[in-house]
């Protein structure tokens, strides 16, 4: 299969002020990330808050400029292009945000909000296309004339999905699209995203911290920790045989309804200490299986074949 998106060695560092008059100190958000997203797959990008998963998504879409590295879309280099040159490519890339309350303008009617993408790209008869899209995402037809406040959270997220998909994109970044929704509504949106992917031949980068959601929607999973990819593999295998101790910790931490013989498992969670500075594995201080080498040499992401990659000296 062809790669739709290819990310090579991207890095991004933000500057943060330590106090109001303090020194500027660099915060490494993404540090040498490589990703290949194949046409038609949905790749899950998981990790805890602050691990850089959203930054990766933004860099791919060109919303954030990487300090180093390149992004290719359909074998064409898109990182570093000017916004004019980006215009024609951006049509094929879209994003769905986490909070459907913050990402819809309260003063713009739904019809215009969804149709804006089409107008920007010079489509004349937007109304017909928008109304078709509203039908596809399962909302009543009069949605077109209404305002965001008239809708519930789940309905708004449907509207955001319609807005992302109306321009016929090939690639969609879903940034925690269901984490602000109620449980009964969450399932509806997950199903909708799965159906639309099949019908419209979409490719997803699905960013989430919820491993239960990711398991139900993604074909392949990439685990990030402190700006680095530490494990990658097909969904089934990642959950049944995690290789990296951090992946193992993440999976064991998920509150699950599968009965564990009625007893709470004792976890090997070591309380969080910030990542090591400079050389060494970023997970060193929290790792129950660390060896001496881990503290001094950063493990590289080894390719084990069968889509499986892991960065750990123990493997």
């Amino acid at each position, binding site marked *: 299969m062809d790669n739709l998106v290819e990310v090579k060695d991207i890095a991004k560092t933000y500057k943060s002020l330590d106090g109001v008059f303090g020194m500027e100190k660099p915060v490494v958000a993404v540090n040498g990330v490589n990703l290949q997203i194949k046409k038609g797959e949905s790749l899950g990008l998981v990790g*805890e*808050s602050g691990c850089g998963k959203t930054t990766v998504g933004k860099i791919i879409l060109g919303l954030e400029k990487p300090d180093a590295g390149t992004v290719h879309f359909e074998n064409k280099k898109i990182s570093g292009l000017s916004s004019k040159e980006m215009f024609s490519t951006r049509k094929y890339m879209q994003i769905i945000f986490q909070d459907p309350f913050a990402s819809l303008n309260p003063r713009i009617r739904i019809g215009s909000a969804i149709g804006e993408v089409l107008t920007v790209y010079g489509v004349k008869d937007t109304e017909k296309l928008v109304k078709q899209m509203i039908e596809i995402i399962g909302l009543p037809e009069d949605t077109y004339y209404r305002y965001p406040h008239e809708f*519930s959270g*789940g*309905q708004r997220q449907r509207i955001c999905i319609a807005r992302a998909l109306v321009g016929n994109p090939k690639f969609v970044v879903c940034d925690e699209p269901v984490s602000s929704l*109620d*449980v*009964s*509504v*969450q*399932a*509806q949106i*997950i*199903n909708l995203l*799965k159906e639309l992917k099949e019908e419209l031949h979409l490719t997803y980068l699905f960013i989430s*911290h*919820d*491993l*239960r*959601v990711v*398991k*139900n929607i993604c074909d392949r999973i990439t685990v990030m920790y402190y700006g680095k990819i530490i494990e990658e593999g097909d*969904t089934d295998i990642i*959950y049944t045989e995690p290789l990296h101790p951090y992946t193992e*910790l*993440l*999976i*064991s*931490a*998920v*509150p*699950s*309804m*599968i*009965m564990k013989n*009625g007893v*709470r498992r004792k*976890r090997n*969670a070591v*309380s*969080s200490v910030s990542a090591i500075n400079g050389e060494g594995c970023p997970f060193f201080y929290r790792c129950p299986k660390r060896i001496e080498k881990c503290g001094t040499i950063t493990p590289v992401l080894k390719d084990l074949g069968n889509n499986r990659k892991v960065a750990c000296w123990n493997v």
Partner: protein
Amino acid sequence: MIDTLLKISKLSIEFLLPEGSLKAVDGINLSVRKKETVCIVGESGSGKTVTALAIMRLIPKPGIISSGEIFFNGENILKIPENKMMQLRGASISMVFQEPFNSLNPVFRVSDQIGESVELHIGLKGLAKEQKILEVLKLVGIQDEKRVYNSYPHELSGGMRQRVMIAMGLVSNPSLLIADEPTTALDVTIQSQILDLLAELKEKLSLSVLLITHDLGVVNEIGDSVYVMYAGKIMEKGNKSEIFNNPKHPYTEGLLKSVPDLGPVKRRLYTIEGNIPNLKELPNGCRFHPRCPYAMEICKKQTPVETKFSSQHSAWCFRYQGGEEQNG
């Protein structure tokens, strides 16, 4: 029963709005025994948080407790004067809120914030107070308690702040801890640490916990018994294994089936059609009937009554007949 710590009976909470009153909680019964972790599960707007606030007598205006009784240790706390309630609140009953970011005061050190409770409820001062604070910080699993003691909230991580909140709740040695979505804003690994902590403290301190959550996974991890709430009413109650293995109410059943979990992946997740009702336009009859796959004619007209399946397990649904009319 002798070991009942908290008993809520026929509690209704209304919000008096200019356009009319809104019933957020409608005649529920609930009880928490000593050393028990009771979970209230429900989606937004089901009335779980207001129920908790009612126990603390902290319902924000224009909300009122329109009827019902809340017994704590056999005493109706809705009848006692406010100054007596103040002694109870934070001392015997404590509450931990969802957002550790919003519920700590950013301009006071951790020591001052916990210290306030120590002074008020235990009456310790000076060195004894400091000792007590350090002790409780250690109890909630903070290893460098001296640093945290002198810290401001912004210097701590989310998990640390939630630990401080729990420490603040526990310092007065309460018999009931109300935790309102204590882990929702936290990362999974931190969440599991906090859940471990709650389970451990419950044993150590003989604590009863009333846990409010929307996450059935969390319930499975630390709950003993479960109340399922929907639009201000209790739909089903029972102990954990009864609810998880043998759900009777269609809403409970739907919730359990629709949650994505770590088990085998289904092509489609089960969904409960429709949306949570607006409290201003509650459906007649059973509140769940517009979304219920088994809805019958009677469901649209009458409110279902309790059907008992065991001493603890009950559901309010017309699919099972019998029982007298009360909720909870």
